Each structure stands twice: as C-alpha cells, then as structure tokens.
C-alpha cells in the first residue's frame, strides 16, 4: 500500500510573545484508502498537525508529502494549487460562503482551480448526500447538519485523494453527526478515498480504521479497529499522565 499522506519530523512553533510549541517532532504515515482519527487533549497539537499535513499552514521544520510529492518544498501559490487538486476539506464551522447557493458553494473549488464547473457532477454528489432539492438555496436556509453535508459535498466534488476533516461533528446534534461520519466512512470504503479527521469525540473516532493519539505535540499511541470505550480509556490515561 502507498501512503496518501506522510509527515516527517514536523515541528511547529507559534511565536506570540513567548514561543509555544504545538508540534514537537511528529512523524506519521496515512495509508491510501484508510480512515484515520487524530485525537488528544486540548492543546495537544492535533489541529496544527492536520493544518500542516493539509498544506493550510507551514510547519516550522519537517516535511509533508501528499501523494508522494513534497508539499513543503513549494511556495504559497503552488502549495494552494497542489492542495486544491488533491485534497478536500471539512471544518467544524462549515466554511460555506453566505452569498453563494448550495450548488455554487459545492463547485467553488473547481471554479477556483479553473476546472470546468461540472454541474452534473455537483448534482450527482448533492444527490448522494440527499441535498438535490436544496441546490439553489442559500446556506442560511439550511440546518447545521445539512450545511455540513454541503461542506462534505464540496470536499468530494473534485474527487480528491485525501479528505481532511477538522472536528466535522463538533457543532452537530447526535443524528446529524452520525450521518456525516457514516458519509466519511462510505467515501473511504466505497470510493477509495483517504480521510484524516481530528476529533475530541470518542464516538466519532470509533468510525475510523485507526486512531492516532497526540499529547504535548508528540505522538502518544495508536489504536486499530477502535471502539468508543477503548478510545475513551486511552484518552483518560493521556490526560492523567
């Protein structure tokens, strides 16, 4: 199996008066076609890891490979172009543009990449996610769960190799959360995508194939075929340690 994403000894220091180390030498590989959850206490560096791995932020040191090519070696614009070809994003706060309709939001990454804004593809994805009838509406008319499904549709529309999700269920009720998680799992199982998801919720992490734990900017264990109970137990240990 090849690695969809690989990070090598990532360091990230934020310089806000007193320097804060968010990542302290993290190396990890994410196999293609797998669903990985990244967990850890607040301030463990899990969101920073995701942002660096996804090319949204630059590590202070270390290397990031996306689909075998090094992301960290390129400039800002090249990095953006690279990431919009190969990665999709889902965030806690949906990140939809209020001025654009559901469909326009979904095809936004394609339009930014000057790829043909394929309406058929957008409709197809929206249909899969049960949003076909909402295509012409503005996001403000949608519930939180529906908005997050639009965000997932936007992440899927360009057929990216990797989908990065940062607390995708953080703002959702239990039912919507389960729908979104099931969707993410389907994209991995049925469409061969790779999903990397940051979460603090053991129930959400249990949808993944593997859980990676972080504490104080370092790797702190790994669980395969996780259950919510096992994840919660590991987390409790981390916090206590």
């Amino acid at each position, binding site marked *: 199996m090849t690695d969809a994403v690989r990070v090598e000894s990532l360091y990230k220091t934020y310089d806000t008066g007193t320097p804060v180390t968010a990542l302290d030498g993290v190396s990890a590989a994410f196999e293609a076609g797998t669903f990985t959850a990244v967990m850890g206490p607040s301030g463990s560096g899990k969101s920073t890891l995701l942002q660096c791995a996804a090319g*949204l932020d630059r590590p202070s040191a270390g290397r990031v490979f996306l689909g075998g090519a090094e992301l960290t070696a390129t400039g800002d614009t090249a990095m*953006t*172009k690279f990431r919009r070809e190969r990665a999709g*994003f889902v965030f806690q706060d949906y*990140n939809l543009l*209020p001025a654009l309709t559901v469909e326009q939001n979904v095809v*936004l990454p394609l339009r*930014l990449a000057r790829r043909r804004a394929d309406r058929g593809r957008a409709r197809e994805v929206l249909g899969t996610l049960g949003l076909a009838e909402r295509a012409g509406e503005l996001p403000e008319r949608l519930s939180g769960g529906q908005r997050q499904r639009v965000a997932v549709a936007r992440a899927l529309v360009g057929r990216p190799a990797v989908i990065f999700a940062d607390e995708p269920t953080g703002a959702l009720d239990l039912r919507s959360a389960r729908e979104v998680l099931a969707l993410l799992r389907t994209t991995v199982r049925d469409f061969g995508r790779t999903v990397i998801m940051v979460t603090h919720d053991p129930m959400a992490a249990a949808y993944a194939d593997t859980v990676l734990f972080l504490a104080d900017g370092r790797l702190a264990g790994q669980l395969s075929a996780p259950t919510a109970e096992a994840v919660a137990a590991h987390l409790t240990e981390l916090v206590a340690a």
Partner: protein
Amino acid sequence: MIAIALRTLRHRPGGFAATFLSAFLGAALLMAFASLLDTAAGADEASAESLGTTASVAGGWCLVIVVFAVTSTLSLAVRQRGDQFAVLRRAGATGPQLRRMIVGEAVAVAVLAAGVAVPVGLAGGRVLLGLLKDTGQVADGVGYAFGPVALAAGFGVTLIGAVIAGFATSRRTSRMGVKRERPRARRIAAGLFLGAAAGCAVLTATVMDGKGIDAMQTAGQAGIWGSLGLALLAPELLRLTGTSVRLASAVMPVTLFSGIATGTVYMQGIEDDAAAGQIQPDYARDIQTLNYVVVGMITVFVAIMLVNTLIAATVHRRREFAQLRLAGATRGQVTAMVAAEALRVTVTGILAGSAASLFTILPFGSARAGEIWPSASIAPYAVIAAIAVLLTATATLGTTRRSIRGPALPQA
C-alpha cells in the same frame, strides 16, 4: 473570480456603503472642480487663469482626501469580511486570485460611484462657476462646460484610488496563516506627510513672508499634510493614551476633520484681520469664498466618513457586546463603556487635529500678520470641537443602542 466577487457585493451591499459614499462624494467633488478646466477652454484669458487656479488648488486638496477616504473605508470593508476570505483560502483560492477578487470589487464600486456622481458633479461645477462669476473673477459671458477633463478626473482618480486601496488591502489579507499588522509602510507614509507639512510650513514662514494672501497656498497645504500624517499615526497616538488600538480607524477622520477645519478657518481669520484697511488683490474675496466652500465640503465629506467608520466599527463589535451582556453587564453599562471609549477617540482626534492645524496657523500668522500666535477668538475652535464630539457621540451611541437592544441572548 470576478463573478464571485460581484455576487458577494450584491449579497451584502451594506458592507460597501461607506466605500461607495466616499467614492461618490469624492468623484462628485473632483468632477465639479475639474469641470472648471473644461470651462476654461472656452473662456477669455483672465477668466481661464482664475478657473485654472481654483481648480488646481482646491482640486488638489480633494484628490488627497479622496484617495485617503476610499482607502480607509475599503480596507475596513475588506477587514470585516476576513472570515469570508479565510473560507475562500481554505476552498483553494490562491493569493493572486483573492487579490483579483478584492481589486475587482473595489473597481466595481468605484465605477458605479463615479457614474452616479456625474450629475452631482455637473451641478456642483455650475454652482462653483456661479460663485466665481458673482465675485467678478470670471467674466459673466463664460459658458459652463462639463467635458473630458471632468470625466477623466472623476473616473480616473476614483478608479486609481480604488485599485491602489484594493492592492494594499489584499496584500495583507491574502497572506497565509496569522495576519500580522505591518506598520512600517504606514509609519513611513506618516513620516513623509509630516515632512511635507514641515516643508510647506517653513516655506510659508520664509519664502511667502510678505506675499500677503498668496501665502495661503503653502499654509493650507501644510495643515492638510500634517492632518494626514497625524491621522496615519492614530494607532500610536491611541497607545500613548492607553486606549485600544482597534479604534484607530475612528480617530483618523476626527483628526482630519478638526485639523483641516481648524487650520483653514483660522487661516482665513488671520487673513481677514490683516487685510482690514489694506488694498487687496481683486481675487481676495474669491479666495475667501472658496476657502469656506472647501471647508464646508471637506467637513461634510469627512463627517460622512467618520459616521460610517464608527457605525461599521460598532456593528462589528456586536458579538463583543452580546458577550458582555451575557456576562451580566446591563445595557447602561455597555453604553457607558462605549461612551467612554468614544470620548477618548474624540479627544485624541481633536488634539491630533489641533496639533496639525498649527502647521497652517503658526507660519501663516508669522508670514501674514507678523505674529506667530493669532490674536483670534477661540469660538470657531470650540464650534469645530463641538461638531466633532457631536458626530462621534451620535454615531457611536446610536449604533450601540441598536445593537444591544433586546434580551441578552447569544448571537449566532
């Protein structure tokens, strides 16, 4: 890219109201003055010279103020939508793409504003010509013309201002990661403006000494450059008084207003005193009228800019107010807090403006009346300060009251 930008504009036109208004007013003023040059093309030599002087002196003031106002309102509008640009960034927009969007929006607003300004500029130019005829400076037979110079000045300056403002703002926004304020360029510009002010002031007190009313040209400029320079230093001035630097955008218009208004009104006052009993060049009354007209127009212009900046700044803090209310602050307490801030903004702005006006008053007094400190009444100054306080108070408190009306519920 431009299509996305235009859709955003249509969705939230309110965010660009201030930019539109300042571009509109600026274009109208510029067109009015520039149309005098169109008129001069068909006038006798003496009339043409007078028209040319009026247009270039007053038009020059407007130019600087327009570019400043469009830049500051546009960067405010863009900054308020920072989260939207972050979304676009995450959706894969590159820095150059964002820049094209921001500049595209700015140009769209500017073209629209300049277009709407055409009839207003035309009417304004007619009024100006009427004033010049009434004071006998332009021959009665000269017909009004509104042509290529007026249109080029109105559209050209507004567009160029918008493009410059768009680029300057997008440079900050399109950068990756944490946005850091980079005060170097602003401080350098402030230094240059203050240098120009000092230069004009020295010129006034030396070269223009004894040149009578002509000293107004350099003296007036000195005050304008000084006001602009100090307005750009608003964040530093606020830090001196221990007030939140966020309010800097509100201090700028107060500084400009009090600086230019005080400087010009006292300069004309000194001139009036010095001219009493002397034989005056025939354009003295002309200049007097023009001075008051310009002060009036700049006052209206800056006042609108001030009110808009304050409303935008206060609306932007809706969330902060809501959190204060949730934490148990009464509506009265929130209002009192805002009032105290507004007071500090006004006082800082008025003090900076007063300092800037000295660039005009001191050298002009020395050149024209032979006394550095004018023996003038304090009344006009008090009126200007009162107008500044009134404008700030009305804008801030009105908006605050509206945004904290209703129960202390969390806002989405």
